[in-house]
C-alpha cells in the first residue's frame, strides 16, 4: 500500500491506476485468507474442528453483568441495566428553565452558501456509523448527486427558522464497557456512544462551522482556549503553558499549575 501511495505522490501513476492496484491488492488479501481457511478446515485434527466451529460464531457478544445502583438495588434485566446506565450518562439539570431565545429575526442563514453545505456533505468519513434511521453518509452523498437542491433547502430553512427537526434529535445510545475498570458492576464503568442521523449531522456541521467562524472573526474566545479550534492543537496548549512557566523561571520566580477536569464535557452543557 505504501508503494502505491508513493507512486501516486511522485506522479508515476494516475488516479485510475492507483485505484486499480489498490483493489487488486485487496482482492489478493481476500483470496489468500479464503485459501488459508480452506487449508485449515481440510487438514483439521479432532480438536481443531471445534476450534473452527468457534471461529464461525459471531464473537464479542457478551451479556453485561448485573449492575448495582447507587442506592444498592441490583439491576438484572437489560431494561433495568440500560436505565441505570442512561441515568449515569445523561444527568438531570440542576437549575430551572433557561431564558428563551428570540422567536424571530437573525441573518446568519443568508451567509450560508451552497458550497458550505456541499462541504458538510462531502467532508468527513463515509465509514461513520449511521443513526437510528440507518442512512449512512454514502446514501446522503447519492441524494446530493440526485437532488442537491433539496438538501440545500432543508439546511437553509432549518437555520432560518431556527428549528432543528425533532426526528434528528433522537439518538441511538450504544452501551460499551470502558476499558480497564476495576468493577463492571456499576453504571460508571460503561460509556454510551450516541449515534445521530447523518442528514441531521449535515445541518449540525453547517451550524458548527458558522459558529466557529463567527468566534474567530469577532475574536470571541480567549487566547488560552484550545481544542476544536482551527490552528490550535493540544501541542500548542502545552507549549503555551511551558512558555508561561519558563518566563516565570526567567524572572527568578516559581510557577505553579493547577490541573482540573470538567466533568463529563458534553452531557453537562447547560
Amino acid at each position, binding site marked *: 500500500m505504501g508503494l502505491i501511495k508513493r507512486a501516486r505522490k511522485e506522479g508515476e501513476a494516475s488516479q485510475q491506476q492507483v485505484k486499480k492496484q489498490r483493489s487488486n491488492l485487496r482482492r489478493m488479501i481476500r483470496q489468500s485468507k479464503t485459501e488459508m481457511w480452506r487449508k485449515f478446515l481440510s487438514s483439521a485434527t479432532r480438536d481443531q474442528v471445534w476450534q473452527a466451529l468457534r471461529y464461525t460464531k459471531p464473537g464479542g457478544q457478551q451479556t*453485561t453483568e448485573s449492575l448495582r445502583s447507587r442506592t444498592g438495588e441490583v439491576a438484572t434485566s*437489560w*431494561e433495568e441495566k440500560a*436505565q441505570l446506565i442512561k441515568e449515569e450518562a445523561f*444527568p*438531570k*439539570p*440542576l437549575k430551572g428553565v*433557561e431564558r*428563551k*431565545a*428570540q422567536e424571530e429575526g*437573525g*441573518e*446568519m*442563514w443568508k451567509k450560508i452558501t451552497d458550497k458550505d453545505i456541499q462541504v458538510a456533505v462531502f467532508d468527513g468519513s463515509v465509514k461513520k456509523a449511521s443513526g*437510528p434511521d440507518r442512512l449512512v453518509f454514502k446514501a446522503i452523498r447519492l441524494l446530493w448527486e440526485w437532488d442537491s437542491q433539496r438538501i440545500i433547502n432543508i439546511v437553509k430553512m432549518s*437555520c*432560518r427558522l*431556527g428549528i432543528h427537526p425533532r426526528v434528528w*434529535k*433522537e*439518538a*441511538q*445510545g450504544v*452501551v460499551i464497557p470502558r476499558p480497564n475498570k476495576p468493577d463492571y458492576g456499576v453504571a460508571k464503568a460503561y460509556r*454510551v*456512544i*450516541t*449515534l*445521530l442521523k447523518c442528514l441531521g*449531522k449535515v445541518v*449540525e*456541521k453547517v*451550524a*458548527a462551522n458558522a*459558529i*466557529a467562524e*463567527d468566534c474567530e472573526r469577532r475574536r*470571541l*474566545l480567549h487566547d*488560552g482556549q*484550545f*481544542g*476544536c479550534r482551527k490552528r490550535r492543537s493540544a501541542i500548542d496548549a502545552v507549549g503555551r503553558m511551558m512558555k508561561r*512557566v519558563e518566563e516565570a523561571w526567567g524572572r527568578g*520566580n*516559581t*510557577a*505553579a499549575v*493547577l490541573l*482540573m*477536569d*470538567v466533568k*463529563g*464535557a*458534553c452531557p*453537562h*452543557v*447547560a
Partner: protein
Amino acid sequence: MIKRMEGMGFEADLVRWVESFKEERKVIMSMDGNEGDSMDVEMGVPQGSPVSPVLFVIYLSGLFGQVEEKEKECESEGIFFVDDVAWVVEGEDVGECIQRLERCAAEITIWAKKNACQLDIEKT
C-alpha cells in the same frame, strides 16, 4: 447557553437553532443486542454531534474572564484544551504560588456553581 450566546452577539436565528437543537432530545438505548424505548435526555449536547465541541468551548469561555478579572493581582492564566483546564500562576516562592492558586480555585468553583458546571473532583 442561550443567554451566553446572545451576550456574545450571535445572530438570533443561530441562537434559536441552538436552543432547538438542545431541547427535547431523546435517546434509544441499546445493549447486549436489545433495543429499548426512546427516553428523554434533559440536558447536555450529544457527544456524537459536530456542533457539540464548539458549543462546549463557548460554554466554558465565560470562566476565563471571571477568574482573571476577579483575581487580577494573582496574574493567573487559564489554558484550556476542551475539558482539560490548566491554571498557571507565578510567585516568588512555592507558598505564594499555592496561595494564589487557592484563590483562583475558589473563584473557579464559584463560576462552576453559578453555571451548573461540575468539576470532576475525583480526576483533579
